[in-house]
Structure formats: structure tokens, C-alpha cells
């Protein structure tokens, strides 16, 4: 660790909370030897292995893909695995659980409220010909431009950083929040989808998209560049056009009718049995 000559000790001020013994969270400080390239997640592992085995947090992939290790690092929501300690700390680093969620223990927030809101906006392709979704017999055609209209919003990893940074969500627990609203726009902008008007009932409600007043923190903290603030503004535009009956009513794209005519070839094996 000291081979590169840049090792130093950083004070980790970690929020601790044990639901069985503590009435409220408190901060405990650990001295952690840190060298260049170490992430906050590495630092937490160091604490758990050498200083305090009772420390709890959530993580999985360690490479900024799963979205499990979202935390408040020096007051800013970020992924612990994606943040190098020496990039954000000189001598002290505060590590706290994501705000605007309940704390289960130490640094592990309960993201259930976010997933409930996400589920409520029907985050999947909704079509009248549901049989085609359940048992597809062809492909839907989309141009690259049509793909670009929603591709950016598909990169969301549901880490909850945007929900923790949102000042509106801090005072309105019923506000849907940046992640579910961006997910709604992701499907609304998809030419295969026909569920926008159904989602409008929720996204256009008093706790929907118009509660956002563009503080922009969700886009600043998003570790994947999803830009939820942009998605929400596009969602609002569509809501206004729908409300004024100015939106062009376009049916969802049809099955591909080009070469092959979208028909299933005889030698393709059937899909495996459903597991969920």
C-alpha cells in the first residue's frame, strides 16, 4: 500500500445506526490508510476487515453497474465503488446513507419507496396487441433517431442518488421523484409503446412531473449520465401537449415488414420456459 509513496491516513466519519440499540444515527470516526486509486468502497472494506466488523452497507458489482452502493460522500450522493477517496478528500471524508430514504442499518438505505413509485408508472412496453409482447412473432422496427429519443434514459441503474439529491423530494414524500419520472419518459418516448396516456394520469398528477422545479441536482449526481432533469422536462412538454390536445396521435410502430417480413423462421428454437 505504501509502495507508491502516496499513502496517507484519512479520517472516515461514518454514520452508524443499529435499529436494535440506537434511537438515532450517530457518527463514528475511523482512521483509514489510503493510497492512490482506492475507492470509498475499498476504504469501507478496510474498516470492516481491520477496525470494526459490525459496519454494514450494501454493495455488489464494485464497478458502477449494479447501483447498490449509493451513499452520501462529503455531502454529495455518489457510488462508493465509483468514487476515489483522494479525489474528494484531503484529510476527512464523511460517509452517510442516502437521505430521503429510511435507514435499515448504518449505510444501507431502504430503497423500497423508490421501487414502489417506479413500479407505479408501468415501466415496460404497453401495447394494445399484448399477445405480440407475450409471444412475439416478429420484430418491431425503429430508426436510429427513434432509438436515440429514449436511449440515454435506459442507462439508469436505480442507485437512488438522484432521489437523495432532489430538494423537492426532501419536503414532499409523495412526489414521484427523478428516477421514476425519467423511467416514464424512457417508455413514453419509445415508438413501440402505447402506454403514455395511461402513465399521464400519474406523471401529470399534483405529485408528478410538475413538482419538479429544475434544481438540477439529479442530473449533477447521476453516476451514469442519464440526466433525469432533461427527461422530466421532455415529459412535461408532452403532458402539456396532451392536455391541450396538440400532440400528434401516432400509433405504436408495427411489426417489421421489410425483408423477411418479420415472420418467424422455421428453424428457430422456441423460447425457454419462463422463470419468473
Amino acid at each position, binding site marked *: 500500500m505504501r509502495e507508491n509513496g502516496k499513502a496517507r491516513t484519512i479520517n472516515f466519519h461514518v454514520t452508524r445506526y443499529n435499529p436494535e440499540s440506537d434511537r438515532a444515527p450517530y457518527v463514528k470516526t475511523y482512521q483509514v490508510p489510503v493510497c492512490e486509486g482506492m475507492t470509498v468502497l475499498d476504504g469501507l472494506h478496510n474498516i470492516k476487515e481491520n477496525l470494526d466488523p459490525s459496519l454494514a452497507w450494501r454493495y455488489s458489482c464494485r464497478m458502477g453497474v449494479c447501483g447498490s452502493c449509493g451513499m452520501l460522500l462529503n455531502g454529495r450522493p455518489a457510488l462508493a465503488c465509483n468514487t476515489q477517496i483522494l479525489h474528494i478528500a484531503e484529510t476527512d471524508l464523511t460517509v452517510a446513507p442516502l437521505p*430521503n430514504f*429510511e435507514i435499515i442499518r448504518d449505510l444501507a438505505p431502504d430503497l423500497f419507496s423508490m421501487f414502489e413509485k417506479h413500479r407505479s408508472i408501468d415501466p415496460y412496453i404497453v401495447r394494445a396487441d399484448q399477445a405480440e409482447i407475450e409471444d412475439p412473432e416478429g420484430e418491431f422496427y425503429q430508426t436510429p433517431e427513434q432509438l436515440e429519443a429514449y436511449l440515454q434514459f435506459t442507462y439508469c441503474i436505480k442507485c437512488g442518488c438522484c432521489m437523495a439529491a432532489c*430538494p423537492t423530494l426532501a419536503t414532499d414524500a409523495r412526489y414521484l421523484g427523478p428516477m421514476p419520472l425519467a423511467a416514464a419518459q424512457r417508455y413514453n418516448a419509445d415508438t413501440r409503446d402505447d402506454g403514455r396516456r395511461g402513465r399521464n394520469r400519474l406523471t401529470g398528477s399534483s405529485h408528478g412531473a410538475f413538482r419538479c422545479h429544475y434544481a*438540477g441536482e439529479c442530473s449533477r449526481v447521476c453516476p451514469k449520465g442519464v440526466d433525469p432533469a432533461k427527461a422530466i422536462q421532455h415529459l412535461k412538454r408532452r403532458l402539456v401537449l396532451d392536455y391541450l390536445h396538440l400532440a400528434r396521435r401516432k400509433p405504436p410502430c408495427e411489426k417489421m415488414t421489410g425483408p423477411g417480413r418479420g415472420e418467424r423462421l422455421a428453424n428457430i428454437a422456441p423460447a425457454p420456459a419462463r422463470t419468473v
Partner: protein
Amino acid sequence: MAELKRYDNRLGLWGWLGGGRWGVERYAYILHRLTGLGILCYFLLHIVVTSLRATGRYLWVEGQFFHRPIFKFGEFLVFAAFAYHALNGVRLVLVELGFAVGKPIEPVYPYRTSLNVQRPLLISMMVLALIFLAAGGYEFLGLAR
């Protein structure tokens, strides 16, 4: 299974101020809310004061209560709040109608967000607000005389 005890970590009003990185749009957001609440308070007081006319008290006529310097400054603050709230509101209307935020793009690190795209609009509106404030200060604070 026993119900787990949870600690509610909602930030509340502190969430307006803390919680994330301090970007200029967040300052604009906080100031927009504060000026909105300030203008609302002014309207309520305005109704109370003008309704005093029913009891024969005219506090706003020459030489009366509301001609003290502190109220002249208060008037200027109301004007400043109004100028900021109105111009920032124009920006928000444009942004919320999908103008000045750009189209969805492929997220390539370092990420560019819609905040960068609308920043010139924000700066223009704030420059306009400053011009309004200067003109208002000239008039309200008695510099015109």
C-alpha cells in the same frame, strides 16, 4: 417476520439547502421559492393594510407610517423579489416546455447534462434581473430625486 425498525432520513426543509452539490440551478431554485413565499407574505400584508381603510386609517398617504425609510427599502425588496421571480419563472416555463434543454444524447464520460445547455438562458435572465434591480433601486430608493 418481525417488523424491522427504520430511521426516517428525510431531509425536510434542510433538503432545499443541503444534500447535493451546490450548483447554480439549486441556488436559483431556493431563491425562487423564497421570493415566492416573500411575495405571498407581501400580498397578505397588502390586503390587511388596504383593508384598514374601512376603519378610516390611511397609512400610505404622505407623511404617514409607510413613508418611513425602512418601508421604502421593504418596497424595493418586494420589487427585487418580483423581478427575480418573474424572470426566473420565464426561464422555468421555457425549460419545462422542453426548450433549451437539448435532445437526449449518448451519455459519454465526462457527461454533459441539460444544465449546461440551458445555462446561457439562466445567465441572460439573471442579467435582465440585475438591470431591473438597478432601475428599481434608482426609482424606489429615491436616487431619481
